[in-house]
């Protein structure tokens, strides 16, 4: 890819954005061409969002923006201006794992853990839309992300256990 020679110094193009990240709102001066993933990782310093392909296929970089699961490698930081971003760092509260995170651990749904943040964020967004009750729904919910270590079985089990316990809570209340 050729660089536009009239503009040999692309670093100069910066804009201010205002974003809410895991509940706290802040303004940032960002380069126009900075990807949202690199912004979250390097400028905000939240390294839990990972990059596995940088072309929108693996899902490792998934974050939630205004309630939708989004691949942060496919967006520029400037496009997130005014939005609310949730990352994996926001899931556990005061170091206490969320029930989904706990089910992941109990069901050995992660090995190297590199893909895990992306799966968790995809699932959190999906579970907000409604429960996942069957194995095929669970697989569908997982299918936008790639894991090379686990073979997905532990994740399927974790999701089903998770939604059963939510169902259980609902039925008992």
């Amino acid at each position, binding site marked *: 890819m050729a*660089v536009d020679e009239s503009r040999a110094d692309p670093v100069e193009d910066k804009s201010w954005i205002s974003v809410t990240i895991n509940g706290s709102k802040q303004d940032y001066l960002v380069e126009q061409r900075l990807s949202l993933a690199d912004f979250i*990782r390097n400028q905000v310093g939240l390294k839990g969002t990972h990059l596995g392909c940088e*072309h929108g296929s693996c899902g490792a970089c998934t974050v939630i923006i205004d309630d939708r699961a989004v691949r942060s490698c496919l967006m520029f930081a400037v496009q997130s201006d005014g939005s609310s971003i949730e990352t*994996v760092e926001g899931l556990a509260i005061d170091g206490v794992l969320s029930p989904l995170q706990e089910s992941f651990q109990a069901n050995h749904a992660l*090995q190297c853990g*590199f893909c895990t943040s992306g799966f968790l964020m995809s699932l959190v967004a999906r579970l907000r839309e409604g429960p996942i009750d069957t194995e095929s729904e669970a697989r569908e919910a997982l299918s936008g992300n790639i894991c090379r270590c686990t073979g*997905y079985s532990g994740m399927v089990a974790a999701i089903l256990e998770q939604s059963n316990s939510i169902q259980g809570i609902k039925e008992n209340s």
Partner: protein
Amino acid sequence: MSQISEIKENLTVTNIGRGMIRREDPRLLTGQGKFIDDLPFSDFYEAAILRSPHAHARVVSIDTERALKLSGVIAIYTAADLEPIMKDLPPKVSHPKLNYQIRLPMVKEYANYVGEPIAVVVAENRYIAEDAVDLIEIEYETLPAVASTHAALRKGGPKVHIGSESNVAVHIIQKAGDPEAALKTAPHVIRETFKITRGGGHSIEGRGVAARFDPITQQLTVWDNTQAPHYVRQMLATIYGMTEDEIRLIAPQDIGGGFGPKAQFYGEEVVIPWIVMQMKHPVKWVEDRWENFISATMERSQTHRVEVGFDEDGHLLVLKDVFEHDQGAYCVGLQVPTITMSTLPGPYVIPNIHSELISCYTNIVPTSSLRGAGRPQAVTVMERMMDRIAEHLGMEPAEIRRRNLIQPDQFPYAVGLLFRDGSPLTYDSGNYPALLEGAVDRIDIVKFRRDQAEARSQGRFLGLGLSMYVEGTGIGPYEGARVRLTNSGKILVTLAASPQGQGYETVYAQVAADAIGVDIDLVEVRHGDTSSIPYGQGTFASRVTATAGPAVWEASELLKSDLLAVAASLLKCDVSSLALSGNSVFIESEPERRVLLYDIALVSNVGRHGMSVPRDLPIAIERTAYFKPVQAVYSSGISAVIVEVDPETGKIEILKSLLGHDCGNVLNPMIVEGQILGGHAHGIGNAIYEEARYSEDGQPQAVSYLDYALPTAIEVPTPELFHVFSPSPLNPLGVKGAGEGGTIPVPGAVANAVEDALRPFGSRICELPLTPERVLRAIYDHD
């Protein structure tokens, strides 16, 4: 679990054998993992690499002038700037007959594959570094490329390396018995040609190297997400002319998958730390996915021409296999094809064997071990032939296997060939009939055949495939562990090997806690830092459980005897009257008389400055053990799959998948099952989806996940698992490797199942992966 009693007599095993949840998980689940690109390298410059766009070319000139002018670019290095380190990167496994071609860290004159590094740009950040890569001007003289073993062997065809006389890297023959005579006399001989293509490792995290040089201590610290930290340190020390103590190699606490490619040694690992020392400024380089596709080693195609001879009852008499292996542009190691050679006979009694390797150079990225490492190819070939024998004799595939299996009373069983570790291929233990019958019982073959017949009558095509394997694991030369009583009274286990998701921090705490007899919460496991333990080999070839496991065990036992001796001295009693539990040592008959581990640390580690201690009191409570296996230990397993093939679309649906697995004693069943499940997914990828395709001029055709299909949760069913436990007699824990067994038999089982499904069409399945296109060709395009 019953097998635990075998581990050690008189031992109270409380942790080993339990599926304990992993200590690693909380940090990984909360985004607090420490992967290489997550480390706070904020003052580091970042590097990007210009890679050859041609499969074969001479670099005529390189002009970096425009790139250097770009604001934010710090420096650019090419081979001409790196003369002192332009040294050979030797193969991991070699052979006296290897037609050796030197592999340099960067291209000096000839680029021999697309992706070979030519220049390194160092800039303030990766964005600028990549811009600068695009501004470097290179004049190439392109040369004819060789992009397959078939092309490599063509008489008078182009050569992969200019000036070399042959594209053959090595030609090796191994024989057992008298295969030529047996082929002449065997009542039945059948032949086939198979082409099996594997793919890449595709750890979701790419490779990465960062380094810092401290001019005061003259210490070079290298962070490298390698599977083999001590190996990399040794390579660097040799190339740089430094001692091993001047280089600290740290494999980060978390590594995002390995699968083999990260166990190899690459030019980038040589160049980045070196330029750090030249620039006197830290630098990091993290591979992106495109680079991973074109520059990380992978496995690719093998073409096998196989013949088997057998008698009327289906007993194997002779196996002859001649295969071409794609070595890529350089020989990074011969481990993959030599493993293929010795994996072929599998669990069967075969009196006469001829296994012949013709390994070829091609102008494609080098090949090396990848989960399964040459075994899935061998197993596919052998298991396809077992099915063909069954078909030839009109027998059930399970029955033909049953008649040929090595029996449990035949161990140790000498196959008559050599394994890749140089030792005779001698299986230490196993129970292959238990694996076969375990699968047969669970599948209910009689019922399946009824279902299959009924489905066929409705125009649906179901097939059953079986596939068995034996896998050499736990190879040498050694692995190390250091166990220490810390001054605060805890136990610290330091491993030489570094994990990439296998849960070492959990498993080896289980082993140490049981060996010493302390509360597991007092045990902490660290790994991957060469400054903490002087020697090690690394995580590859399913070797760590069976090498580091015994090392941890032995070091812990030694430490335990020290703890008891100190306590005996303090309590003024005999060692034999003592027991260990929780955080203390006590007199068994008077449990209130006890000393805490903390007290022992105070006396023996901290000491009183300048004061003498009793002669018999052990001091400095730390023990290191290196476990040196005498030979490989042999895991085994079976895969059974039932598929349905759609003859309209060529789509394969896996209706059932079953895996039987034997890796001896199991330290943590949850983690072992995880390894099998993950390996199984990889096997399905190899069977149906994953293919690193190249054009005839060596251009890679799959360089993103849009054109290289990694299986997702939709494609990978959850297999049913069962275990057989044949503990190895060759190590104190009775363990064998488990990292690859899920992958190895699956492609063969799927191929067998698909041919079984398509039998009404007379289809011959001879090529993997079974993409829809290949399936349709097998159905409609044969005579």
